[in-house]
C-alpha cells in the first residue's frame, strides 16, 4: 500500500522516511502536486519553492541511504507565512511595497532550525498585509479561502498558514501572532496552533510588526507535530533581542505524562459575556473533558485589550511612517487607514498602555499561583464569510475586523503561552479554545492538548476537499 502523506502527521512522515516506507522526494512531489491542484481555490501560497523542496528532500533521502540520522522531522513538509525570510525569496509580508525589496539572503532562524531537523520547505504563504489583519482578505494576493468552507475566511493574519495545514498541503506551517494571528486562524480553520511565551522562539528574519508583542509559532494537525516543531525551534538567538536566554524546555518528552496536579479553570467574566454560543460550547466541551469546574476572572481585561490595541497601533504606525509618507496608495486600504491613525497615537496613550502592562502582569502572576491552565474561546465567532463586515455581538451589530481579536489580544499583551485547541462539530464550523498558561509553561499546555486529542475532544483532520 502506498504511503499517504496528505493525511499523515509530520512525525508519521518522518518515521516512514527513516524506515524507507516512502522517500522524502515522493512525499514532496505528492504535496507539490496537491498544492498546484488546490491553489486556485484556497490561495494559501504566494511562492512555491519546488526547487528548494526537492533539493532538501534529496538531501534527506541521501542521508537515510547512508544510514545517518536525518533529524526528527525528516522529510516532513512545511511552509511559512511570507513574513519569514526564505533565502532567495522576497519577504513580502503580505504587502505590495515590500515586493520591491531584494530576495532574502538567508533563512529566518526558525526556518534554519526546521531545516536542520530535516523538514522540507514547500513555500511561502499568503497573509494579511504587514500582519495587521484578522481575515486575510489581502487585496494584492487575494483572499485565503477556508478549506472547511471555501466561502469563508481562514482567519488572519496567518491565514495561508492555517489553510495550508487544514487542506493537507503541508503537515506544519509557521505563523506569527501579535494580537491573535495564530489563534484566530486556528479557530476559523479548525487546526492546532501554538503561540509560545513572548521571547521563547526567535523572531530573527521575520519582517517586524509590533516589537513589544510579536511572537512566532507553529500550526499542525496533531499535538505531537506542534510539540516537535516547537522543540526544534527553541534556543537563544542573538539576532532577536527579545529571545530568551533560558535553556530550551522540551515538550515532546513530557507529552504523554498524565495531568495529575495540573490545575485548570475556565476564564469567566469578559471571556464568557459575549460571543456566539458555538464558541462557548467549545469551551464547555473542553472544560468538561478536563474536569475543570473552577471559574477565574482576570481584572480590568478590557483595559488589557485596549492597551494591546494602542501599543499595536502606535508601534506599527511608527514602523511604517516612512512608507505611509511615500507610498500610502500602495497599502491595502483598511490596513493603511489603521496605520495612519496609529501613527498619530498620543504618547500618553502609548505609555499608559506600557505601564498598564507592568501592572497587569503583577495581577495575573498572582492568579497563576493557584491555577496552571486557563480556558477561553479563541474567537467570538466561527469563520465569517469572506467580505462580511459585521457580526452580532452582545445583541448588537458591530464591525467585524476590529473585534475578532477581543479574546486573544489581552493574552498576547502579557506574552502568555497559548495552545489553540480545535473543536470540530459535525455539520458546523470549528472553533478553537485557548489553553492559556503561565509564562514558560508550554510543555504543560501541550500535555493538556495531547489529553484532549486522545480523548477525541479536539481534533484537526484534513478538510475534505473535492479534488
Amino acid at each position, binding site marked *: 500500500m502506498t504511503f499517504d502523506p496528505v493525511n499523515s502527521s509530520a512525525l508519521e512522515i518522518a518515521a516512514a522516511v527513516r524506515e524507507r516506507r516512502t522517500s522524502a522526494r515522493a512525499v514532496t512531489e505528492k504535496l507539490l502536486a496537491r498544492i498546484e491542484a488546490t491553489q486556485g481555490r484556497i490561495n494559501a501560497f504566494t511562492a512555491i519553492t519546488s526547487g528548494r523542496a526537492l533539493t532538501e528532500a534529496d538531501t534527506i533521502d541521501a542521508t537515510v541511504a547512508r544510514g545517518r540520522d536525518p533529524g526528527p522531522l525528516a522529510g516532513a513538509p512545511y511552509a511559512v507565512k511570507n513574513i519569514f525570510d526564505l533565502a532567495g525569496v522576497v519577504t513580502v509580508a503580505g504587502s505590495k511595497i515590500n515586493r520591491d525589496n531584494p530576495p532574502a539572503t538567508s533563512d529566518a532562524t526558525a526556518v534554519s532550525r526546521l531545516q536542520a531537523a530535516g523538514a522540507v520547505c514547500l513555500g511561502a504563504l499568503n497573509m494579511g498585509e504587514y500582519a495587521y489583519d484578522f481575515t486575510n482578505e489581502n487585496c494584492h494576493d487575494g483572499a485565503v479561502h477556508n478549506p472547511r468552507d471555501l466561502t469563508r475566511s481562514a482567519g488572519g493574519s496567518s491565514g495561508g498558514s492555517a489553510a495550508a495545514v487544514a487542506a493537507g498541503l503541508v503537515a506544519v506551517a509557521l505563523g506569527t501572532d501579535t494580537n491573535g494571528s495564530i489563534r484566530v486562524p486556528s479557530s476559523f480553520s479548525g487546526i492546532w496552533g501554538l503561540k509560545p511565551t513572548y521571547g521563547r522562539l526567535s523572531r530573527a528574519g521575520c519582517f517586524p510588526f509590533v516589537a513589544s508583542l510579536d511572537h512566532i509559532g507553529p500550526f499542525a494537525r496533531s499535538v505531537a507535530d506542534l510539540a516537535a516543531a516547537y522543540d526544534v525551534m527553541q534556543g537563544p538567538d542573538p539576532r532577536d533581542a527579545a529571545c530568551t536566554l533560558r535553556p530550551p524546555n522540551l515538550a515532546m518528552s513530557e507529552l504523554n505524562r498524565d495531568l495529575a496536579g495540573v490545575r485548570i479553570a475556565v476564564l469567566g467574566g469578559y471571556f464568557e459575556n459575549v460571543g456566539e454560543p458555538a464558541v462557548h460550547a467549545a469551551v464547555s466541551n473542553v472544560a468538561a473533558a478536563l474536569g475543570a469546574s473552577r471559574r477565574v476572572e482576570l481584572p480590568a481585561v478590557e483595559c488589557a485589550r485596549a492597551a494591546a490595541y*494602542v501599543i499595536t497601533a502606535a508601534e506599527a504606525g511608527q514602523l511604517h511612517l516612512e512608507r505611509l509618507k511615500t507610498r500610502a496608495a500602495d497599502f491595502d486600504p483598511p490596513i493603511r487607514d489603521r496605520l495612519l491613525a496609529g*501613527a498619530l497615537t498620543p504618547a500618553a496613550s502609548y505609555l499608559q498602555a506600557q505601564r498598564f502592562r507592568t501592572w497587569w502582569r503583577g495581577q495575573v502572576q498572582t492568579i497563576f499561583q493557584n491555577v496552571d491552565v486557563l480556558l477561553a474561546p479563541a474567537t467570538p465567532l466561527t469563520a465569517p464569510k469572506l467580505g462580511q463586515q459585521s457580526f452580532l455581538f452582545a445583541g448588537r451589530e458591530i464591525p467585524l475586523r476590529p473585534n475578532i481579536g477581543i479574546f486573544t489580544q489581552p493574552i498576547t499583551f502579557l506574552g502568555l503561552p497559548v495552545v489553540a485547541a480545535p473543536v470540530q462539530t459535525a455539520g458546523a464550523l470549528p472553533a478553537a479554545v485557548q489553553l492559556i498558561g503561565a509564562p514558560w509553561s508550554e510543555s504543560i499546555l501541550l500535555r493538556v492538548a495531547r489529553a484532549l486529542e486522545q480523548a477525541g475532544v479536539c481534533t484537526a483532520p484534513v478538510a475534505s476537499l473535492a479534488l
Partner: protein
Amino acid sequence: MPIINYPAVIAEVTACCEAYELALVANDVAALEFFFWDSPLAIRFGTSEQLYGARAISAFRQNRVINFHNRRVLRFDLLALGSDTAVAMLEYEVEVAAGTRQGRQTQVWFRFPGIGWRITSAHVSLPLAIADPAFTQALASAKALGLEIAPDHRAGTLTNLARNAAITAPLLAFPLPDEIEPAPIFTP
C-alpha cells in the same frame, strides 16, 4: 429647444463659472459681488457661515482673508434647466494650514432680463469627515510628523482614530500607581 442642457445655455453659464472661479482664486471681491444677484433674497451658505441677502454676502467677502491661489477644480457639472436657469456643481481641492482640503460648491444661476446671468443661491461644504474638528487636529499632528494624509485616505483614518479613542478611553481612565514603570524590553 431641449429643456435640459440646451448647448447655448451651457456655453454661456460655463463661461460665467470660469470667470467666477478666476475671481475666487484672485479674491477679486468686486468681480465676485458682480456675479451674485444684488437682492435681499440672495443666499449663500459657506462651510461655516450662513449669509442672507446680497449685503451680508458682500460684508463677508470684504472681511475675508483667503489664499485660494492653489485652488483646483476636481470636477465640474452643470445642469441647465430651460433657457434661463442652471445649477453648477463642483468639487474642489485647496491647500490650507492643516494640509489639502476638499470641498463641494453648488450655485443656482438665473438669467435676469436686461441684466444677465447671476447667482441667486449657493452652498459650499466640506465632506463630513473633514468638517470634524478632531480631524483638523489630526491633520495638524500628521503634518508635524511630515505625514500628508491624502484626501481619499482621510475618512478611513478618522474612523480608526475615533475607534482607537473609544477603545483607549477606559485604559486612560485607569488609575495606575506612580511607581509603575513601562514594561521593559531593552536589556543593556
